[in-house]
Each structure stands twice: as structure tokens, then as C-alpha cells.
């Protein structure tokens, strides 16, 4: 394909991404240097780096950063191990049954995140099923405090993204090198030896892919926490970077500071993102 044809075909898409992604990113850096609220939205006041300093010296921002990190560190490995385990089990059952199981497993993934959170909340409500089971077993009331709320958030985090890891791993299992597996069977390798020796190495690149996507997704977790704790975050200390950013910009109406915070979170994700981008760049250059 000629260069001119390429640009003619991709023009609408490139134009849209430039206007609505590149320009906003530059705008965000600029807006982060202004003092803006909803009152002076058309007539902002330039304050230089004050907003950035403000964010970096804000205790609640660092608390949010800490909880986001903890959330990611706990939820991501759980998701992946559970996803792989279920994928391996699913691989063992017959094709007809698989489809049925898969339909159920996909449910948490396709449900609107806000709705999924709400359903989770119903289970743990004062009249919810889990609350009742908990109270019958332990004979104490299930109280909402920092620990229970954070546990609830993480449980939901595992619940709704595991299907993604599961289906991805399952797809990977369908492309296993069958000659290697047969050779291993002839040598008398048992199931676990085959998993360790053949399956896990085969899934390596897939694991890195799921890991990166999961880290980036948990880094920007917003919907579920916003719905679960709403305005009670100062009590439960369950703010994440995104919910605190939202609160700053929209609820406290400090748009300038909110933009500054958004820019700083971008710098944060770069640690994970840049090695990934370099890797993809190399792959694409080789491929062409």
C-alpha cells in the first residue's frame, strides 16, 4: 500500500485521536497550571506549578496512591492464579459442557461494572445473603469499617476481571504444542509435570500480557469504589488515585488541581507503560 493511500484511509481515525487525545493531554498539563473552579471556568488564573506542588504535598493523595498500589498488588495475582486454575480445569471437560460453563463465567465480565458492584453490595447489605451467612457462622454482626470495606472492594475486583484472565488463558491452552505433550506422555510425565514443563512456558508471553493489562486496569479502578463507598471515603480511607482525582476536580470543584493530579497519575503509570511500549515497538518493527 502506498503512503498516500494509507493516510487517506486512516485520516478520520488519526484526526479524531489527535484532536481528542493528543490535544487534551497537552491541555491537561496547561490546565494543571491554572486556578480554575466552576465559578471562573471561562476566566482561569495562571498559578504556575502551584497545583502540582499542592497535589504532591496532599496527604490524601499519597494515601490514595498507597491504597491503589495495595489493591493492584493483591488483586492482580489473585485474578491470574484463579483464571489459570479455572482455565486448566475447563480444558479437562468435554466441549459441550465447556460452552455452558463459559456462559456463566463470562457473566461478571459483561455486566456493567456499576451494576456488578451494586449486585455485590446487595449481597453484603444489612439484609444481604453473605451478611446473613457470616452472622450465622460467626455470631457477630458484619460491620462496615475500613477493613471490611477494603476487603469487599478487593473481592469485587477479583470477581469481575477473573473472566478476562480465564478466557485469555483458555485460548492460549488451545494452541499448546501437541507433539511436545505426546512426547511427555510417552516418557510417563504426570499432569503436574506437564503443566510445569510445557504449559507454563508456553503461556509465558500471554501471562505478561494479562499482567500488564491487569496492572493498568487496576491502576485506574474507579467505578466500583465510587459506587461502594460513595462519599464515605474519608472514613474508610478507601480512596484510589482515580476516585480522589474525581473528588478533587468535580466534588471539591478544584478543576486545576484535578488536572494537575491527572497529569501526575499519567507519569505514575509510565513506569509500567514505557517498557511495554518499547517491547511492542521492537515487535512491530521486526514484523513489518
Amino acid at each position, binding site marked *: 500500500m502506498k503512503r498516500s493511500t494509507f493516510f487517506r484511509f486512516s485520516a*478520520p481515525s488519526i484526526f479524531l485521536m489527535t484532536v*481528542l487525545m493528543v490535544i487534551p493531554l497537552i491541555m491537561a498539563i496547561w490546565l494543571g497550571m491554572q486556578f480554575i473552579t466552576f465559578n471562573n471556568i471561562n476566566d482561569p488564573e495562571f498559578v504556575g506549578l502551584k497545583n502540582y506542588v499542592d497535589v504532591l504535598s496532599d496527604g490524601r493523595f499519597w494515601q490514595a496512591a498507597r491504597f491503589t498500589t495495595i489493591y493492584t498488588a493483591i488483586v492482580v495475582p489473585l485474578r491470574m492464579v484463579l483464571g489459570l486454575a479455572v482455565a486448566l480445569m475447563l480444558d479437562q471437560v468435554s466441549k459441550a459442557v465447556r460452552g455452558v460453563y463459559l456462559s456463566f463465567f463470562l457473566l461478571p465480565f459483561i455486566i456493567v461494572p456499576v451494576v456488578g458492584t451494586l449486585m455485590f453490595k446487595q449481597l453484603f447489605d444489612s439484609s444481604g445473603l453473605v451478611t446473613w451467612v457470616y452472622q450465622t457462622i460467626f455470631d457477630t454482626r458484619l460491620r462496615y469499617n475500613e477493613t471490611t470495606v477494603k476487603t469487599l472492594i478487593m473481592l469485587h475486583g477479583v470477581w469481575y476481571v477473573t473472566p478476562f484472565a480465564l478466557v485469555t488463558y483458555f*485460548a492460549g491452552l488451545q494452541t499448546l504444542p501437541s507433539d511436545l505433550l505426546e512426547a511427555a506422555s510417552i516418557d510417563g510425565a504426570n499432569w503436574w509435570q506437564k503443566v510445569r514443563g510445557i504449559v507454563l512456558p508456553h503461556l509465558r508471553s500471554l501471562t505478561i500480557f494479562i499482567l500488564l493489562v491487569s496492572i493498568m486496569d487496576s491502576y485506574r479502578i474507579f467505578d466500583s469504589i465510587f459506587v461502594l463507598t460513595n462519599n464515605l471515603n474519608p472514613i474508610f480511607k478507601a480512596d484510589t488515585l482515580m476516585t480522589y482525582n474525581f473528588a478533587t476536580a468535580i466534588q471539591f470543584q478544584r478543576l486545576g488541581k484535578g488536572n494537575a493530579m491527572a497529569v501526575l497519575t499519567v507519569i505514575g503509570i509510565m513506569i509500567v507503560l514505557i517498557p511495554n*511500549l518499547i517491547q511492542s515497538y521492537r515487535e512491530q518493527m521486526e514484523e513489518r
Partner: protein
Amino acid sequence: MEKTKNPIAKVAIHLFLIVFTIYSVLPFYWTTMQSFKTFKDANSRTPKFIFTPTWENYQELWLNRVPENGYTILFFILMAVVILICLALFAEFLPWPNWVTYLTVAFGFVAILWGIPEVVETAEFYDYFVNTIIVTVGTVVVSITIGCLAGYSLARYSGYAAVVILIAALGFRALPRLTFILPYYQIGNALNLLDTRFLVILTLVAVNQPFTIWMLRSFFMDIPKDLEESAMVDGANRLTAFRKVIIPIMWPGIISTALFSLLLAYNEFLLVRILTQTNWTLPVAISRYTGGEDPRHLTLAAAAAVSATIPIVIVILFFQKNLVKGLAAGAVKG
């Protein structure tokens, strides 16, 4: 991998899978039960597993006033929907071209959505529902149209510019949404576009575009180049070759990508929450039921949650294979 022959292992595997099924479905099951309970049953401390189901919550959610001949109206609406779905399914066997049937069916659905408020007094939730459909369909159509053109050219052009665009798109896809949405708010405010569907659709298309072009590109890469090249030797230009030769065999890939666009648009909360004040979509409308202390919100929220889930479940039931294939394609190649 080959399957185990050990009967105990087999039972253990099924047991494990069944437990995981329960874990996946339990919140959905419980919420559905709650949505059919009266307010008193739903709030009882010991859960009621046996109760008289009631439509009250759904009626309160969807209707301002319950019509006297409600069941007759419901019957006619369902009949119309079933007929339209059957028409779409049997389009192949009808004497006229397929697109005529699909267009008729689409118009039929629009007519039904438009007609319902004329017959019964619908509540706000219905408006949010219609709004969600408009926003979702708009986003999918625009995303896929411009995404197909870009994805195709990215798959066929091997110059340096294509690599740069792909990598930039990958980077943008990973960035936190607020970095874009807060400037969108500013732009929308300056252009007086806040609270319009136009702005919501346009920005949703933009934030989903990186994902869309990567996925469509991976599907286009699977199609051999010879196909359009032979068409172009016969005198067709590239755009005609693309439309007449490539698109017809790309349908499965397009449907997979469209499903993901649909989920992304239907699920979006943050963007819609910030850019609109009244033209809400369902996720924002539903989030209203979670904050308040009013215990009556419990059953209404349950009914709203189930109502928002059913359309998506129906769509996925039809296209589950495409969804799984899309996930696999994105994973293996992206």
C-alpha cells in the same frame, strides 16, 4: 491437553467448576431475587428464600402510572419484538435483499422505542434506557466505520508511520481516563456542548479508538493480500476492493470488535457522569440508587440492576462465540 481418565479427578474438576459457577452467578441470582420481593421481604434480616414474587419494583422503575390494560399492551409489544427478531433471523430466506430486511427491522425497533411513551406513561428510567441505546449504537457505528478504514490501512501499510501510530495508540489506551475527560469538560463548556449526546458519542469513540484499531487490524492481518489485489487487477480501485471484497469476509471480526465497543460504551460511567447533567446513560442513572440512605432504594436498585443487565445478556447469548474469539485475538496478537 489430553483429558484425565481418573474418575475421582473428573468429579473433583466438575465440583471445582460448579463452585466457581456459583461464585460467578451468586450476586446476579441474589439481586434478581431481591428485585422480585416487596420492600418488607427484601429488608428482612433473615433472607427469605420463599416469597410471593411481585412486579411492583419494575413497575415503579419503568412507569409513572400503571395502565389498566397493562398485560395487553405488554403482550403486543413482546409480539412485535418477537416478529422483528424472527424477521432478522430469517432474512436469508426472504425474496428481497438482506439489507432491506435489516433496515426494516431497525426501523421497527426505533418505532417501538418511540411508540411506547405514547401508549403508557413511562418514568425517567425509560428515557435513560433510550438514551443509552442511542449513545451505544452511535458509538459503535462511528467507531467501527472509521476504525475499519484505519485498521485495514494499518494492516496493509508497512511504513514507519504505521508503527508510530500503533505504538502511540497503545500508549493512549493505557492512560487514566480523567486525563482526557477533564479537558473534554473544558472543551465542551467552551463550545457549549455539555450534556449533549453528540459530545458523549464523539468522546467515547475517541477513547475507544486505540483499542478498536488494534483489534480490527489483527483481524485484517488474517485476510490474505491476494484477495483485494486480484480485484484491483480487474480494475477496481482500493476503496471499491475494500468494500466489495474485504468487508464481506471480515464480518466475524467486525462483530467481535463491535461487541467490545458496545460493552465499552454501554458500561461507561466516569465520562458520562462528568459530561452530562440530564442526558444520562444507565450506569449513571443506576448509581443514583446506591448512595441514598432510603431503604426503599434497595429493591428499586435491584430492579434497575437486573433491567440494565438483561439487554446485554441477550446480546452476548447471541454472540458469545464472537466475544470469546475477540478476547483470544486481542490476547494472542495484541
